[in-house]
């Protein structure tokens, strides 16, 4: 049975190759719109994520304006806002809640995850394992094409009676389930639920494909432990998506039914509402289901970038990554532990305190693999020949900001401390140090690093550094003071801090944060400008501009459909820098040549001495 299977399998692949041979004849919409080329799909993810980055960013600036200058009209654009958003230029409390919800949801589901997993997963995996495309290119294409409709559906909340969803990105019931509307009414919340369900499905479709690609399509000679950390991280992330996202989907399905059909999975008995329903549900159940996915999801949002940063750091330190295998096991360890810590979001929810203690312990244990990674990055830098390229600067920012975010995480992980800071701006500071300081700087590092291979042109380094400098400074100006606000008792998600006497003294900090945020937002225009400018006027990129070792740099300057113009066979691991006995300080994976390993040092030897290989 299996032989016939394999034969047919290769026959099918043959047909596929045939298609490749004729790829010049593809109509334009198959080349640029409904393309199955992983590199085109990667660029599509990049484009849509950049677009949503600015949408989500604009929403954030509205929020910041209201917090720094409550009740004052928004300058310049205040007058042209729709009546459901603002009166006399001052945004309404209802719209403020919608802004918060949409900011968080867009940034997480339409920016960070599509950037980290969609864009880099698509671009890096096939190139770095030396193959022509994903295992199932059509499925890959559909995984992108679910994203724009999902985005439109979420944004369509604007046209409903109640406006956008307004229950926060976490969408806790009863607020999200009990809208007070009649059965079968489409509200912003309904659309939110459908939209997140769709992006989740898109993620799963991408992830199962990544898993098959990594397992099945590695170049000749490439063992699993010859894969760059970027691929490892994306592979493990794909497993988290495969196992975690469907659980969120199950929760969303129930929430949708509560919201749309008036079931009561998450609505308790005796809840006073203006519509009829039957009770018996539990609101905390939703929190469990939601965080069972959403804590692993924070690792979906950071693990790929941890991989990318490792590769960037090795290349620009001209040193092998310190503790390659430890790095792989740390990623796997984080992924596993990530599934058993979700309760740290629920210390204050009314959950059994004994459970709280359990979750506190498991959460603190995650600090161990996280620290292994940080120490190994430092070990990689140690005595390296460091080149401060734009990519490297962003990678360094990633590590340092992740340390701050991780440390505040450990604060919050201890239940007694969290009782004080839960639902304050301290949490907001934490999430932005890990998600912006971590993930987004990692994304920038990846963009600066792979842009030459993506577009065949070099990004402008000077502007790259300016972008980095302004982002780094204004990022810290924006988010560091939020720790202080949080310790000062400033709650998350409040419309007007001035109504609380004890927050009156914090107005200056709120203003500082807002000024920082505006500058941070505008700094990102440098990146977009650089990307667009370099696409047309950038220097032509050589094949291997950073003198790196991994397989994507074996591909032509601007690879077309099919990726490589030569046979790829892998002879060694991805991080052979500074090998003794070689002229160059790097040794690409695809270059023929023999070596021996003595005390963890690789020494190049002439081919005929290979038989003497010793340890």
């Amino acid at each position, binding site marked *: 049975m299996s032989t*016939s299977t394999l034969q047919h399998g290769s026959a099918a692949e043959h047909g596929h190759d045939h298609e490749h041979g004729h790829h010049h004849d593809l109509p334009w919409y198959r080349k640029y719109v409904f393309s199955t080329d992983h590199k085109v799909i990667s660029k599509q993810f990049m484009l849509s994520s950049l677009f949503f980055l600015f949408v989500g960013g604009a929403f954030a600036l509205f929020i910041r304006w209201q917090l720094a200058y409550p009740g004052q009209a928004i300058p310049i654009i205040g007058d042209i806002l729709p009546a459901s958003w603002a009166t006399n230029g001052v945004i309404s409390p209802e719209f403020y809640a919608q802004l918060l919800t949409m900011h968080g949801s867009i940034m997480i589901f339409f920016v960070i995850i599509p950037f980290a997993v969609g864009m880099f997963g698509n671009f890096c995996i096939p190139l770095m394992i030396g193959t022509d495309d994903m295992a199932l290119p059509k499925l890959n294409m559909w995984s992108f094409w679910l994203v724009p409709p999902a985005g439109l559906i979420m944004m369509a909340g604007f046209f409903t009676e109640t406006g956008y969803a307004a229950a926060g990105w976490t969408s806790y019931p009863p607020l999200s389930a009990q809208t007070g509307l009649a059965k079968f009414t489409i509200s912003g919340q309904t659309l939110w639920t459908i939209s997140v369900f769709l992006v989740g499905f898109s993620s799963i479709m991408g992830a199962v494909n990544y898993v098959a690609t990594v397992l099945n399509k590695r170049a000749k000679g490439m063992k699993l432990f010859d894969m760059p950390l970027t691929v490892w991280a994306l592979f493990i992330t794909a497993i988290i998506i495969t*196992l975690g996202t469907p659980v969120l989907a*199950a929760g969303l399905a129930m929430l949708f039914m509560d919201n749309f059909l008036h079931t009561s999975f998450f609505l308790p008995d005796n809840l006073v509402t203006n519509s009829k329903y039957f009770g018996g549900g539990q609101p905390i159940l939703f929190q469990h289901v939601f965080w069972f996915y959403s804590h692993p999801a924070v690792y979906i949002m950071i693990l790929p970038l941890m991989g990318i940063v490792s590769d960037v750091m090795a290349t620009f330190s001209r040193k092998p990554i310190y503790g390659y295998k430890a790095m792989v096991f740390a990623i796997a360890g984080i992924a596993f532990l990530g599934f058993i810590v979700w309760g740290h979001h629920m210390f204050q929810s009314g959950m059994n305190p004994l459970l709280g203690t359990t979750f506190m312990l498991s959460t603190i244990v995650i600090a161990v693999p996280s620290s292994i990674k940080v120490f190994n990055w430092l070990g990689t830098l140690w005595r390296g020949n460091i080149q401060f390229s734009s990519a490297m600067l962003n990678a360094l920012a990633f590590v340092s900001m992740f340390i701050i975010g991780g440390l505040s995480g450990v604060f919050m992980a201890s239940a007694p401390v969290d009782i004080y800071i839960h639902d304050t701006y301290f949490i907001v500071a934490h999430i932005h140090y890990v998600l912006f300081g971590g993930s987004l700087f990692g994304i920038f590092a990846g963009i600066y690093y792979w842009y030459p291979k993506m577009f065949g042109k070099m990004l402008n380094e000077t502007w790259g550094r300016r972008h980095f400098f302004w982002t780094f400074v204004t990022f810290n100006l924006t988010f560091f003071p939020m720790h202080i606000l949080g310790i000062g008792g400033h709650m998350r998600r409040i419309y007007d801090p001035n109504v609380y006497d004890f927050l009156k003294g914090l107005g200056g900090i709120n203003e500082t944060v807002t000024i920082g945020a505006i500058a941070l937002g505008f700094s990102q225009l440098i990146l977009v400008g650089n990307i667009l400018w370099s696409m047309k006027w950038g220097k032509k990129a050589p094949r291997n501009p950073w003198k790196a070792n991994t397989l994507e740099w074996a591909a032509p300057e601007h690879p077309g459909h099919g990726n490589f113009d030569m046979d790829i066979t892998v002879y060694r691991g991805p991080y052979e820098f500074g090998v003794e006995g070689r002229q160059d300080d790097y040794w690409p994976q695809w270059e023929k040549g023999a070596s021996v390993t003595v005390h963890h040092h690789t020494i190049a030897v002439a081919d005929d001495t290979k038989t003497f290989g010793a340890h």
Partner: protein
Amino acid sequence: MSSALNLSHEPVTKIASGKLTMWAFLASELMFFSGFFGAFIVLRNSNYEVFKAGSEQLSWVLALVNTFILIGSSLTMALAIYHLERQNTKLFRAFMGLSILGGFGFLIVKYFEYSAKYHHHLFPGQEEHTIFFSFYFLMTGFHAMHVIGGMIPMAYMLFRSYGKGGYPYPVKVETLGLYWHFVDLMWIFIFPALYLIFP
């Protein structure tokens, strides 16, 4: 371009990529239904009486019939694969047709069950609806959608097999077969959970 290069080689794991992807997807599906079962367990414990009353209102006979129909359909699916791999197009069509018929049979029985529920006012929003029936519609509803989701590609394969040379991709049928067995398996869990376990 790549056909001359060594890049598109045999799958490293020796398992066809489509099949491997399907296995990963089924792991995902398993977690999806686990979400429902987890919620079911929690809310069943806090609404014991309601769940007991609810499951007594269901017809386990109809569900048992459906169980046999689905298992039969899984069997005919396996036979369809068996015969396609031996290039016996006629028997492939026969068994594929039977599998699809099984799917229809299942849905028809479901239709009768659902309409009985409607007449007894057990739908969401109707007077007799309880949290148990929320789960009933959630789990059987998503399961039925999975049945329909399997029948569409099955019908397509059957249709294609009337073209020249029959249906050319046994691997794809085998992959779909995995999915079909999974849908069957999920029913094997849903059936006792809703219909059989009287507290």
